């Protein structure tokens, strides 16, 4: 096993004991029209319980494939993934079962447009049969209030702003008391100022709920601002190139962005990522 050594400097506050993910030598090959595609190759990564782990890489590098494997949307062709020591998928069982312990927040948002925000948030516990509709609505209302979402319960997602929609979706995920939150570039489509507001909102939610967060992004500033650790991935096939400990204490606010420590981390990341980006950029152009 080649788990990266924990430096401890940026260890997450150890409130959470559940939600450690171990990704072990994962391979993923699929066959597209153009032929054999090696999306992920020999990828190993340990994510500690209760930490925010940021996965950074250029778009199309296979990060989402990794997330899909953890969530159980796709099978893997080699290696294994464990959640708290339990095998999610591995040699005998290539595809994990999607379940409410690992909830995904999607790139373009997946709030059901035909349900009101409240119905969306209450959806999980109701379909799992854990709560009646009424209990779920009660709890949902409480959780939405905690996240500052008051007065939009009976609106449809299409009626509220995109930043608001993302928050509703995160709350919907948290309703299930998940061990892990899997976020797939959730703020990628927002403009940068709304994004900065959303970052602080996400941290707020995180400080109260202490779940493990697996966060995919290609925005370096976002990665360093939010994460305990930042894993920089190589382009095609995807595997960790460098794992960076972000030793800026939580709770963080936007003025962290201009602190010296932040800048030195930023420098380190920029240089590591830049060559990958150029590689991806050029590969993209060649393919065209």
């Amino acid at each position: 096993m080649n788990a990266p050594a924990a430096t401890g400097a940026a260890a997450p506050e150890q409130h959470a004991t559940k939600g450690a993910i171990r990704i072990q030598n994962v391979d993923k090959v699929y066959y597209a029209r153009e032929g054999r595609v090696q999306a992920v190759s020999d990828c190993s990564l340990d994510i500690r319980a209760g930490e925010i782990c940021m996965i950074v890489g250029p778009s199309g590098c296979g990060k989402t494939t990794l997330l899909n494997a953890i969530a159980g949307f796709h099978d893997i062709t080699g290696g294994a993934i464990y959640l708290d020591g339990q095998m999610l998928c591995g040699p005998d069982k290539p595809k994990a079962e999607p379940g409410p312990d690992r909830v995904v927040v999607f790139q373009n948002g997946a709030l059901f447009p035909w349900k009101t925000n409240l119905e969306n948030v209450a959806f999980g516990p109701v379909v799992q049969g854990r709560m009646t509709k009424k209990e779920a609505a009660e709890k949902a209302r409480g959780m939405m209030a905690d996240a500052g979402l008051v007065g939009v319960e009976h609106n449809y997602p299409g009626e509220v702003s995109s930043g608001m929609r993302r928050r509703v979706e995160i709350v919907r995920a948290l309703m299930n008391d998940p061990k892990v939150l899997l976020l797939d570039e959730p703020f990628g489509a927002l403009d940068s100022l709304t994004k900065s507001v959303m970052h602080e909102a996400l941290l707020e939610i995180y400080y109260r709920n202490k779940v493990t967060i697996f966060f995919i992004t290609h925005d370096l500033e976002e990665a360093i601002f939010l994460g305990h650790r930042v894993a920089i991935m190589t382009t095609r096939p995807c595997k960790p190139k460098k794992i960076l400990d972000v030793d800026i204490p939580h709770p963080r606010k936007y003025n962290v962005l201009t602190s010296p420590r932040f800048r030195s981390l930023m420098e380190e990341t920029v240089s590591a990522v830049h060559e990958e980006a150029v590689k991806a950029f050029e590969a993209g152009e060649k393919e065209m």
Partner: protein
Amino acid sequence: MSAAPDDQGRLRAGISPGEIKVTGVSKDYGDARFRTQVVRECTFTIERSKLTVMIGPSGCGKSTLIRLLAGFEKPDSGTITLNDAPVTGPAHDRLVLFQESALFPWMTTWDNILYGPRARGEMGRETIEMAEFLLQKVGLAQFRKKYPSQLSGGMQRRAELARAMINNPSVMILDEPFRGLDAMTKELMWEYYSRLFEETRRTNFFVTTDIDEAIFLADRLLIMSNIPCQVRAVLDIDIPRPRTLLAMVEDDRANEIKMSALSILHEEAMKSFSRGSKAAADFVDAYSRRVKG
């Protein structure tokens, strides 16, 4: 992609950078009870041969301002002048690059670039040569026969830059041109675009919501307030060119500017965010109390 001296000469040939003055411009929308002032008493100058960047929260009326500058719409009051001549309508001395690509999907890269000269009937041998040169310059020589849908996002933006440059506008107006590109491609586009600016020294007006983008590119930075759109602050960014991403991260001056810009912007962003609904306003309220307390 470094520019040979004669390259630079060619790029600069025929450019006469202009200066736009905006004085006391206001613009309202809607009528009777539904009237809203989007731009109020806006006054600023887009200086000759400089890259002026305007930053403000989304939905603050920046796009309206661009439509006014381009001449698609007329201001309710105030004046806009280009080189002291009033702006009356769209013309090819002020070209706009839109958010996301506005390349005509039914034309090849080559035809797209030549659209302007063709429309004005200026298809001399020189124009063709210039088009050829620009195509090389933006690195799309092999893609001349491709349609926009066959190009990647970054290539589309570069083709659009070429399409604008061939018309030799005295001012180029760019409305969040790199929005929608992924963060890494975007950063490469910044470097590319600022090098192009340094070579041509054309007057550029660039609108964005991204603070890093703004500081990386700008000679002057205009920070706008929320609706109604007004200039909140003007910062001169005196960081030497050429700039690179890494140098900018290390630069103390850049960081200072960022800090002061951020504090203004954060306030405006929160305001713009809460304008969406009452609930968001409540959220912002609760949030700021929590942050302070």
